[in-house]
């Protein structure tokens, strides 16, 4: 049985990041990569934090990754799993692990992206354990 889910706050969206949230609305997890140094970075920026190039480009990530770390927030009205997931693309992002029994969540487990609506009807990437 999956635990009850809390309401998700809306993300703050600005001109640097609106494409990311549009993608999420279409069921895509978008990442930014730099055409100069070739590296993906997270969170996505107009200017590459690795090499300072402004030649950065959106692409769709696999949506697959592994749990880098997590913590089960018990002292909350609706407990939830805070996590960092390392994507196959090599960057680690903050997220929540959902649809999973808390006892099954472990570091190193494979996860895949899914999406949830926020309070203001935006789409938010979250992750669940792979079957």
């Amino acid at each position: 049985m999956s635990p009850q889910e809390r309401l998700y706050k809306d993300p703050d969206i600005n001109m640097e990041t609106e494409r990311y949230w549009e993608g999420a609305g279409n069921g895509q997890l978008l990442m930014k990569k730099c055409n100069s140094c070739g590296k993906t970075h997270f969170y996505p920026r107009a200017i590459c934090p690795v090499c300072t190039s402004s030649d950065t480009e959106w692409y769709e990530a696999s949506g697959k990754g592994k749990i880098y770390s997590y913590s089960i927030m018990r002292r909350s009205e609706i407990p939830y799993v805070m996590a960092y997931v390392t994507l196959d693309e090599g960057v680690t992002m903050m997220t929540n692990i959902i649809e999973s029994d808390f006892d099954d969540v472990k570091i190193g487990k494979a996860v895949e992206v899914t999406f949830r609506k926020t309070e203001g009807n935006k789409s938010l990437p979250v992750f669940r354990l792979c079957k």
Partner: protein
Amino acid sequence: MSRTSKAYIAGIYEHPTRKAVDKTIPQLHAEVAIGALKDAGLTKDDIDGYFCDGDVPGLGGMSMAEYMGLNITYTDTTETGGSSYVVHVGHAVEAIAAGKCNVALITLAGRPRAEGLATLGARDRGGELPERGFEIPYAPVVTNMYGMAAMRHMYEYGTTSEQLAWIKVAASHHAQYNEHALLRDVVTVEDVVNSPMISDPLHRLDCCVISDGGGALIVVSPEIAKSLGDRCVKVLGHGEAVKHLNGGRFDLTYTGAAKSGPIAFAEAKLKPADIDYASIYDSFTITVLETIEDLGFCEKGQGGKFVSDGNLISGVGKLPFNTDGGGLCNNHPSNRGGMTKVIEAVRQLRGEAHPKVQVPDCTLALAHGTGGQISSRAGAGTVILGRNDA
């Protein structure tokens, strides 16, 4: 042996309040400043430099300087959360060495308890925070963020909850002698691991207290220190660092202390084994464990073993730490613990710690501050201090 020091800490003061319902924040700043001046044997008119965090009421330090009636020609409002005050000591030393000021006042004050500030709920500071959209919807709070650091450290190095608990146990042994400490009961490893789980793997007793109050420091030039006598403490080395998520490539098992520590030790021409007493920032037990490793008191990954069996208890272990009870038991004023870390290190070097926790012949001490969150972006500040004759 007489080591050279570019500046000295001449005055310290820790506000005795832990819940300031009847005082304003500016009033607390003034009270701690007056306390530190009295401790140093100086007056307000001696101050020509003022240092504070970015959280004080007003624009930088200007409103507080006006409230306290300071006439200053140098100011620094470096904001690195709870590590700010350790960093301010370093910056004050450099300003004094450069001849920009002679008597620097550093203050911290706040009243989160009186204001009923909850620690739950995502921290939302608004504005143009670039990471905000990618974090706030997931509800990061300080407990689950530190929980993730602890979880990863356990995964990589086999660190256990019992080992983390020893850090709280040691702090509680010290706090029992501090009449101002918020939590004075001695606790056991079982007490810690059986306390309610807040955010796995951190239990309630792995977390620091929330308290009001504050503290102040006075840093002075060597000439002024000479006139004030042997209670002045040398500042032998200082290091600082900011660690962050690095574009999505990071490691939660170490902190900025891995950089600030070696810089401070190199400047002081000392090594971890030389240190008689250490004040280590203790927002959570995991903060202490990672910092002890990063500062080089033991190898990376061996922190769990190092802190066990009372090794941090004064008179028992090899590295007496936080003999005031630290943030875990004594005081974490305004959710910022760096100030009290420096204060207790100075007490130890003066021989003015509580007799039950005073380290015999304490000559060299370290104080380390951590600010922000070690699982995202955090400041680190390390100072190495020496007794007047060190």
